[in-house]
C-alpha cells in the first residue's frame, strides 16, 4: 500500500498496516486523531504538558498493541479517546498530579502570555462540549460532567451531588443513552466535525 493511499484508507485498514510495522500508517492515524486525543486530555488534566504525554502513550500503545483494536466493537477514534480518557483520569487521580495542581494553582496569578492560543482553543472546545451536553436534563448533565471531565467515580459524584449512588449510576447511563440519540442526529444532519 503506497503512502498516498494511506490518506484514503479506512481507520481499520490503517490499524492493520500499523500491525505490520508501517510507521507511515501510524503517522496517518496520528494526523487524523491526535488532535481529538490532545483536546480531551487537556480538558481533563487542565494542562498541556501532561496531555501531550497522554497523546504519546496512546499512540505508542496503538503501535505496540494494534491487535487489540477491533473495528467491530467501535471506531478507532472512540478506541483512542477511551484510552486517553482512562489514562488522563489515572493521572488526574495520582498524587503527583494533585501536587502539581496545587503548585499550579498557587502560581495562578502569574500571567502566562505563552498560552493565549491554548486558552482561546480551550474556550472553543468548552463551548462545543457545553452545546453537546445541553440536550441533557441538569441532573444527568452534572453527573456526566463530574465523572467524565472531573475524573470522579460515581460514588464520589454521589457525595458531591448529595445523591444516592444508585441514582447517580442510573443518571450516567441514561444520560449517555440520551446523548447518543441526540448527538447522532447532529452528526448525521449537520456534519459534526469528528475528524
Amino acid at each position, binding site marked *: 500500500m503506497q503512502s498516498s493511499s494511506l490518506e484514503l484508507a479506512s481507520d481499520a485498514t490503517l490499524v492493520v498496516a500499523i500491525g505490520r510495522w508501517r*510507521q507511515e500508517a*501510524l503517522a496517518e492515524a*496520528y*494526523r487524523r486523531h*491526535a*488532535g*481529538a*486525543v*490532545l*483536546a*480531551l486530555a*487537556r*480538558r481533563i488534566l487542565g494542562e498541556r504538558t501532561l496531555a*501531550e504525554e497522554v*497523546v*504519546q*502513550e496512546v499512540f*505508542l*500503545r496503538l*503501535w*505496540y*498493541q494494534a491487535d487489540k483494536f477491533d473495528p467491530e*466493537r*467501535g*471506531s478507532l*477514534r*472512540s*478506541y483512542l*479517546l*477511551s484510552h486517553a*480518557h*482512562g489514562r488522563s483520569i489515572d493521572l488526574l487521580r495520582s498524587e503527583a498530579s494533585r501536587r502539581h495542581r496545587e503548585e499550579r494553582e498557587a502560581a495562578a496569578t502569574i500571567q502566562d502570555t505563552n498560552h493565549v492560543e*491554548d486558552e482561546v*482553543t480551550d474556550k*472553543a472546545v468548552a463551548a*462545543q*462540549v457545553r452545546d*453537546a*451536553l445541553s440536550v441533557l436534563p441538569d441532573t444527568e448533565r452534572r453527573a*456526566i460532567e463530574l*465523572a*467524565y471531565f472531573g*475524573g*470522579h*467515580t*460515581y*460514588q464520589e*459524584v454521589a457525595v458531591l451531588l448529595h445523591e444516592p449512588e444508585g441514582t447517580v*449510576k442510573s443518571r*450516567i*447511563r*441514561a444520560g*449517555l*443513552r440520551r*446523548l*447518543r440519540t441526540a448527538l447522532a442526529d447532529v*452528526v448525521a444532519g449537520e456534519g*459534526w*466535525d*469528528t475528524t
Partner: protein
Amino acid sequence: MGHHVTHLEIQELLGAYAIHAVDAEERRGVETHLSECPSCRTEVSEHLETAALLSAGAVRAPAFGWERIAAALEDSPPQLDLRRVTRRSVSLKVASAIAICAAIVIGFLALKVAQQDRRMDQMSAALADESLMRSALAVAAHPEAERLLLLSPDQTRTADVVFLPDGTGYIVRHNLKPLPTDRTYQMWALEGDRAVSIGVIGYRPGVVAFRFSGEIEGFAITNEVAGGVNVTGNAPVVSGFRKS
C-alpha cells in the same frame, strides 16, 4: 464486588464503567462479565462512541508530538548478521552469566485448568499485562530509550524490544508462537560471540520485563526445555543487533 454480581447490577454500572467512573474492583467485575455477555459489550461500545462525541472538537496536535513518537520507533529493523549467532558461538559459563547479567524476568504462565479459576486468572493476567504495558510504554517514550526489533531468519517472527541505558528493558510486542508446556522461551544478551542468559520468559509470554547490565550488542530468544538452560546449542528463534 465480593458477592456474586447479577446481570442487572452490571448493567447499572455500564455507563459509569465506559467513562472510567468506577473503582478498580468494580472495573474488574464488569470486565469479567463483559467477556461473557455480548449485549453488555454492545452497550459499552455504544457508550464509548457517545463519549467520543463528547470529546468532539480538537486542537492541532503539535508536530513535535509526532516527532517524539517517531523517535521512539525505528525506521527499519537492524541488519541481521547470522554469522554472529550460531550453534558454536552461543555458549556461556554460569559464573559469567551471574557476573554479567541480573536475571529479573517476569513472564506470564498458562491459565489454570479449573473452570471457576480460569476467568479470574484471565483477569489477573490481563491486569498484570496492562500494568507491564504501561511501564513498557513509559520506557518506550523515554528520550534515552532504544528500540530493537528482533527477527527470525525468515523474518516471519518478530519481537519488539525497548530498553534504557540503565539496563531496564521490555519485550513489548511479539508474535512468537506458543510453545508446548514443557518448553520455554529464553532470552539472551549478546556480546560478541557470547550469549549471556537474561532469563526464561515462559512458553506463552506476554509483555516481558527484563534487566541486563554491561554493554550489549543485541538480544536473542531461543526455544529451550522448561526451566531454561545454562548453555544453549539452539539457534535463535529471533535475534537482533544494535546499530554500531
